[in-house]
C-alpha cells in the first residue's frame, strides 16, 4: 500500500477505536490510538495473513501483549475484513464476541487471548520457537506497552528469546510514555528501554516516529533482515494520537468519551480524513 493509503486506513482504524470505546462507555482509547499506525502497517502490509482463512497454518502470528488496547486490534481486524466494522459498537457488551480484552476463541484473527500484562511476549516466544522446531518460516509479532515492560515476566521472556536466538520474533514496544498512574519515568522508570533489550541480546531499532509510515516500513524491513537474534522495535508514539484532547493526556488511558467528546473526537478524525483526501 502507499503511505497515503495506509494513512487513510489508520484514520479509519482510529474512528473505529473511538466509536467502539464510546459505545462501550469504557475501554482504553489512549494506547489504542498511539498504536493505530503500527496495527495498520502490520495487518495491511507487513504480515502474511488472510482474513478469509484466519487460521491458515503458515500465517504470521500477532500477540497483543498489551491486551487492554483491544479496541485498536478489533478496529484493525474489522477494517481488514475479518468481521463487520458495524460490530465494533458491541465492544464490552454482554454477549458480544468483542470482549474487553482479546479472546482468541471468539474473535476471528486473534491468535492469542491476552490482557494480563507481561504474558503475551512469553506466548510469542513459544510460537516463534514452535515455528523453528517445525522448520516453518512464519514470523511472530508481539506488541507491548511501555508500562507493561515493568512486569518481570517480560524480561524472563526476553532472556529466553535472546538465548534461543529467535530471529523470527519481533517485539514492538509502544513507547507513548504514559501509564495509568502517570509518566512512565515517574511511576517506575523502565528507561533506557533500548539498552535493556540490547543487554538481553536483541537487535534494537529505535523508531523515532511511530506515526511515519516510511520509518515504520524501514523498521520492519530491518527486523525481517536481522538474523541470529530477535528484534525489538522501540516505537516512540503519541498517546491518544489523532484526537486533539486525548493527545499526550494520561487521563485518556482508560476512559471513554461522553457524547459531546465523541462528537469532537470524530470531527478531529474527519478533518484528518479530509486532509488526506
Amino acid at each position, binding site marked *: 500500500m502507499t503511505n497515503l493509503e495506509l494513512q487513510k486506513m489508520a484514520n479509519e482504524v482510529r474512528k473505529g477505536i473511538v466509536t467502539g470505546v464510546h459505545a462501550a462507555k469504557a475501554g482504553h482509547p489512549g494506547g489504542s490510538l498511539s498504536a493505530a499506525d503500527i496495527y495498520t502497517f502490520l495487518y495491511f502490509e507487513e504480515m502474511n495473513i488472510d482474513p478469509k482463512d484466519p487460521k491458515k497454518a503458515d500465517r504470521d*502470528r500477532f*500477540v497483543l501483549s498489551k491486551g487492554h488496547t483491544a479496541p485498536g486490534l478489533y478496529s484493525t481486524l474489522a477494517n481488514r475484513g475479518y468481521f463487520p466494522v458495524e460490530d465494533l459498537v458491541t465492544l464490552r457488551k454482554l454477549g458480544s464476541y468483542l470482549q474487553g480484552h482479546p*479472546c*482468541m*476463541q471468539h474473535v476471528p484473527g486473534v*491468535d*492469542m*487471548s491476552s*490482557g*494480563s500484562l*507481561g*504474558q*503475551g*511476549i*512469553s*506466548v*510469542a*516466544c*513459544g*510460537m*516463534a*520457537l*514452535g*515455528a523453528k*522446531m*517445525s522448520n*516453518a518460516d512464519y514470523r511472530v509479532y508481539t506488541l507491548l506497552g511501555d508500562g507493561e515492560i515493568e512486569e*518481570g*515476566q517480560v524480561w*524472563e*521472556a526476553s*532472556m*529466553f528469546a535472546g*538465548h534461543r536466538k529467535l530471529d523470527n520474533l519481533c517485539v514492538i514496544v509502544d513507547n507513548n510514555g504514559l501509564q495509568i498512574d502517570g509518566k512512565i519515568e515517574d511511576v517506575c522508570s523502565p528507561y533506557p528501554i533500548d539498552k535493556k533489550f540490547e543487554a538481553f541480546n536483541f537487535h534494537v531499532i529505535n523508531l523515532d516516529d511511530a506515526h511515519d509510515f516510511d520509518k515504520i516500513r524501514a523498521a520492519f524491513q530491518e527486523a525481517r533482515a536481522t538474523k541470529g537474534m530477535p528484534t525489538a522495535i522501540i516505537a516512540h508514539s503519541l498517546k491518544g494520537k489523532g484526537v486533539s484532547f486525548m493527545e499526550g493526556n494520561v487521563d485518556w488511558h482508560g476512559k471513554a468519551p461522553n457524547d459531546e467528546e465523541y462528537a469532537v473526537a470524530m470531527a478531529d478524525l474527519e478533518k484528518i480524513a479530509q486532509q488526506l483526501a
Partner: protein
Amino acid sequence: MADIKTNKVVSKIATRESYGNALVEIGKENPDLVVLDADLAAATKTGVFKKAFPDRHIDCGIAECNMTGVAAGLSLSGKIPFMSSFAMFAAGRAFEQVRNSIGYPHLNVKIGATHAGITVGEDGASHQCNEDIALMRTIPGMVVMCPADDVEAKAAVRAAVEYEGPVYIRFGRAAVPVINDRPDYKFEIGKGTVVREGTDVTIVATGICVDSALGAAEMLAQDGISAEVINICTIKPLDEEIIINSAKKTGKVVTAEEHSVIGGLGSAVCDALCKSHPTPVCKIGMQDTFGESGSAAALVEKYKLDAKGVYEQVKTFLA
C-alpha cells in the same frame, strides 16, 4: 516391602520417575510431544527425555512464569508441550499464567507437577505444595489428576496426550508401592475405581493415600469394620457417581489426600455429596497447616497420612 494380603514383594517407584519414563515412551511414538523444564530436569525426572530427545527438550531456566507462556505458544504451533516443575512453582508461582495463558484460551498444554505434598521431605515447607489441587481445580476446563503409583502415573500421562485441552498431573518425589499392577487395569480420565469393597465406611483416596487407605482398611477389618476404598486419580472432572453410590451403601465417607483439606479431594467429594446425597464426611489431609523438614516417612507418620494415621482417624470418626 511386602503386600499385606499376598505377602508378595511389591516394587516401589516414585511417580516422578514414572512421568519421565512415560514421556520417553510416548515421545518415541509422537513427534509433536515436547518437554519444558525450569532448571529442574534432574529432579522432575524429565532428564531421560532430554537425553533421548535433546531437540525436543526446552530448558527455560529458572523462570516458571515465562515457561508457562512458552508452553502455551508451543501448543499454538501444534506441539503437545509438557511443562515440568515442582508443584509449588508450576501451580503456585505460575498460577495466574496457568489461568490466563493456558486455562482461559483452553490450550492443549500439559502440566507435569512433581514434588507435590509433604513427601518432598527434607526441603521443608517452602517446597511442600499442599495447595495445588485446590488452585488447579478452580480453573474452568482444567483436568486435574493425582496418580497413586507407577502404573497409574504412566497411564495418566498417556491419557493426557490423547486428551485435547489443559491437564494438570501431580507427581510425588518419594518412592511409592506399585498397587495397580494387574492385567485388567484400565485407565480413563474422570473414572474412579473401587479398589476394595466394603459396607461400613467409604474411604476416598488419591495419590499416595490410596496405599495408606488400603492398609487402613486391612487394619479396620481386623476390628470387624468393612471399609470400601475408592481410588480417585482424576479429581476434576470427579467421578461423582462412584462416590455417591458408595456413600449410599456405607453412609459414612472419609477422604484421604496428601494435600490441604481445604479445596482438595475432600472438598471436591463434599461438593459432590452435598448436591444429591448429603453424608457425614471426615477429611484426612494437611489440617490447614504448613509442613516441615523431615524424611518423607517421618512426615506422613506425623501428619497421619500413613496407613496407621488413616486407620486411627477413621476409628475416631466412626466412634
